[in-house]
């Protein structure tokens, strides 16, 4: 219910251009108050008695469910999710899909107060339904910060445990076995890994399980509450991912079966809530893009939304995968140790085998099994069918799409524990599950997807160093360890400002991670994202892969310019712009008027000194050879050391950092007649080699004085 209220208020205000925090707060307080008053007026007993009664039920249930095994699992869950939450506090956003297309839209909506479509040229994923992203937006719009956003999935994991427990209890599984199986869901590898990121698969699986639960309840007992709850959960799920439409088909068939014979108001409630919670995205895509499920296409491999090099459609992928997948997937647990996949030792060892036994047993005892148990058990092969539809090369990244099969396997395990009905064997199984769960938690120590390591943070805190959190993405992967030099200074220089920088961004599509550019306090704006009107920018971010040499041919990597083009050469030609950092994957350029404030110079100097201490040392050896009044033009990291020395005097012009390979172009467009360069002279200039300096790290650097002819 809370999710429904959040989604509908955000959607209504967002599509109306009125997504302001005070208005959102007031609307939700009014709605919550009305709902409370409605329930209060309809009560048949005193409110205090209702609360006492509910408390007594929860307390007695918990006491009945507690045993040594569950206490150990609860301790493991608390330990691992405390680690997740601690990492979310100290580390920055550090996933892949969340940085590229789950989070940038919600940051944009918060800043523009409108839900709109981001440029399709950056990512076609911006057209996907965004109910999950709007649920991430709820805490973000209140905090106006990226901190802790990576822990937004944790409450949904805990809710998933409750739903799995409820599902098992519905089939009269004893409290202890039900809680044991439910807690194991929170200790599944892909669930833990996703809990520390802003991927949406945890939420999709949660609402799928809720949909399954209420579908079962409605099948067993046709009450309007169950019909409306099923409608709400299926609607929310279908508004999260296109693939949820297909996942919901079996559940909807079951609902239709009972709704057809039931009361009309049940059908009205079910369909109106389902449509209200998901239709907006499909209507928008149909009107704006001409395809309600843009860019999905079932007749191409990968459904048009997953990378594929094949030409066959979805059915072709299924046929191809059946040959290899069935033998490999259960044994390899593809994607384990990352947020992309990994169902874990408990699922593949015990859960899946329990399901296989239970499903076979149920087929042999059809009359006693019941339709509802079959409906639950059938969700596992349906989940696997979805994985079969994924091109085999992409399975490493997409096993998470069927995360809910773990819950079905655990449902089967809980049932098996009852069937075995022996204390010793049940103890053996439970102890095995606990050992496997402990091993699963240990995966967090090696994980880089996402990163959970806190050693650098602890070291920095001990030394009273508080850099931008984006420093710590250096341990995530090789690309982020380079992009860190763009994200970190951009955030470090602006995080204490109410209004940060207006940034223009252009990038190769594979590097278009927009989320970090907004800054840890959402202080920066991206001016060329929402429309094609030219807006003034204080900062320019260009991200590109290096040109490749292929048998003597230079393969240039295309940069995409959203909405309007501002080439890097044009920006560099203006003396009011300074290159702050340059990397093999791009550069950060900021306007002089922002940087030349005393406080900003101090921050920038500190950033250079903390990040490149060896360059500071090298610069001390190079400096004596340089004359005042002649600028150094270089892309060499020694520039950071030279800048560190000069910024102390407020001097930003003695050393001009340029992107690698741009030295000659820069000198020409700035009409510089005399300059120093490091490592290599300028072509077309008269050059004197001033010195060859032997640095402490055994590297020798040549200094050239270049005169225009």
């Amino acid at each position: 219910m809370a999710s429904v209220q959040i989604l509908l208020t955000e959607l209504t205000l967002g599509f109306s251009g009125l997504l302001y925090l005070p208005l959102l707060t007031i609307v939700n307080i009014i709605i919550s108050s009305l709902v409370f008053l409605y329930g209060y007026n309809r009560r048949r007993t005193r409110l205090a008695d209702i609360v006492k009664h509910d408390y007594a039920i929860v307390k007695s249930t918990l006491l009945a469910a507690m045993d040594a095994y569950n206490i150990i699992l609860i301790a493991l869950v608390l330990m691992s999710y405390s680690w997740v939450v601690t990492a979310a506090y100290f580390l920055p956003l550090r996933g892949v899909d969340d940085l590229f297309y789950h989070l940038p839209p919600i940051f944009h909506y918060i800043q523009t107060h409108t839900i709109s479509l981001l440029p399709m040229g950056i990512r076609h994923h911006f057209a996907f339904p965004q109910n999950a992203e709007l649920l991430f937006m709820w805490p973000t719009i209140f905090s106006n910060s990226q901190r802790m956003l990576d822990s937004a999935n944790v409450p949904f994991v805990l809710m998933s445990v409750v739903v799995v427990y409820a599902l098992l209890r519905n089939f009269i599984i004893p409290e202890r076995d039900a809680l044991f199986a439910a807690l194991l869901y929170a200790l599944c590898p892909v669930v833990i890994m996703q809990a520390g990121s802003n991927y949406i698969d945890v939420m999709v699986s949660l609402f799928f399980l809720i949909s399954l639960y209420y579908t079962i309840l409605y099948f067993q007992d046709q009450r309007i509450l169950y019909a409306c709850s099923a409608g709400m959960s299926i609607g929310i799920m279908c508004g999260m991912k296109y693939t949820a439409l297909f996942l919901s088909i079996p559940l909807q068939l079951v609902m239709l079966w009972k709704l057809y014979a039931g009361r009309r108001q049940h059908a009205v409630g079910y369909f109106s809530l389902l449509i209200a919670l998901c239709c907006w995205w499909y209507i928008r895509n149909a009107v704006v893009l001409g395809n309600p499920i843009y860019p999905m296409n079932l007749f191409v491999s990968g459904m048009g939304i997953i990378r594929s090099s094949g030409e066959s459609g979805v059915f072709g992928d299924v046929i191809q995968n059946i040959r290899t997948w069935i033998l490999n997937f259960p044994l390899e647990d593809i994607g384990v140790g990352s947020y992309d996949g990994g169902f874990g030792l408990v699922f593949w060892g015990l859960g899946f085998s329990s399901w296989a036994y239970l499903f076979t047993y149920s087929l042999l005892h059809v009359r006693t099994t019941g339709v509802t148990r079959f409906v639950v058990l059938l969700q596992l092969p349906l989940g696997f069918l979805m994985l079969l539809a994924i091109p085999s090369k992409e399975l490493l990244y997409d096993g998470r799409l069927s995360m809910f099969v773990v819950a079905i396997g655990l449902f089967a395990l809980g049932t098996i524990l009852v069937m075995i009905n022996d204390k010793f064997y049940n103890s053996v199984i439970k102890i095995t599950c606990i050992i496997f769960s402990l091993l699963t938690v240990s995966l967090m120590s090696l994980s880089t997807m996402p990163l959970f390591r806190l050693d650098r943070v602890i070291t920095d805190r001990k030394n009273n160093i508080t850099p931008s959190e984006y420093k710590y993405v250096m341990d995530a992967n090789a690309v982020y360890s380079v992009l860190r030099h763009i994200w970190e200074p951009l955030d470090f220089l602006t995080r204490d400002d109410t209004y940060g920088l207006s940034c223009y961004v252009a990038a190769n599509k594979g590097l278009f991670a927009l989320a970090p550019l907004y800054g840890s306090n959402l202080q920066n704006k991206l001016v060329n994202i929402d429309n094609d009107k030219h807006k003034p920018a204080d900062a320019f971010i260009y991200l590109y892969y290096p040109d490749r040499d292929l048998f003597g041919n230079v393969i240039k990597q295309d940069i995409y310019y959203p909405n309007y083009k501002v080439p890097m050469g044009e920006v560099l030609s203006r003396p009011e712009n300074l290159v702050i950092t340059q990397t093999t994957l791009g550069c950060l350029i900021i306007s002089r008027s922002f940087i030349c404030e005393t406080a900003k110079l101090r921050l920038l100097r500190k950033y250079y000194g903390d990040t490149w201490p060896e360059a500071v040392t090298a610069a001390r050896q190079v400096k004596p050879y340089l004359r005042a009044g002649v600028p150094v033009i270089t892309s060499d990291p020694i520039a950071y050391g030279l800048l560190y020395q000069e910024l102390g005097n407020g001097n930003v012009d003695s050393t001009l950092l340029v992107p690698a390979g741009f030295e000659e172009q820069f000198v020409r467009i700035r009409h510089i007649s005399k300059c120093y360069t490091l490592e290599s002279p300028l072509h077309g200039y008269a050059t004197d080699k001033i010195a060859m300096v032997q640095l402490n790290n055994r590297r020798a650097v040549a200094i050239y004085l270049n005169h225009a002819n």
Partner: protein
Amino acid sequence: MPIDKPEHKGDKVSCRVVILTVLATCTILHCVSIERTYVLAFKEMVTIVARMLGI
């Protein structure tokens, strides 16, 4: 609807034997194929805990 529990001794034994055999076979097969992943992770976890405790 509650699942059937084995009623007779014969049912009990054969049911349990089958269940446990299936579970054990799948568990051993999967663990053997993926043990390296978890062994490495567990060693790293132990190292981290030891470092935190100053050992």
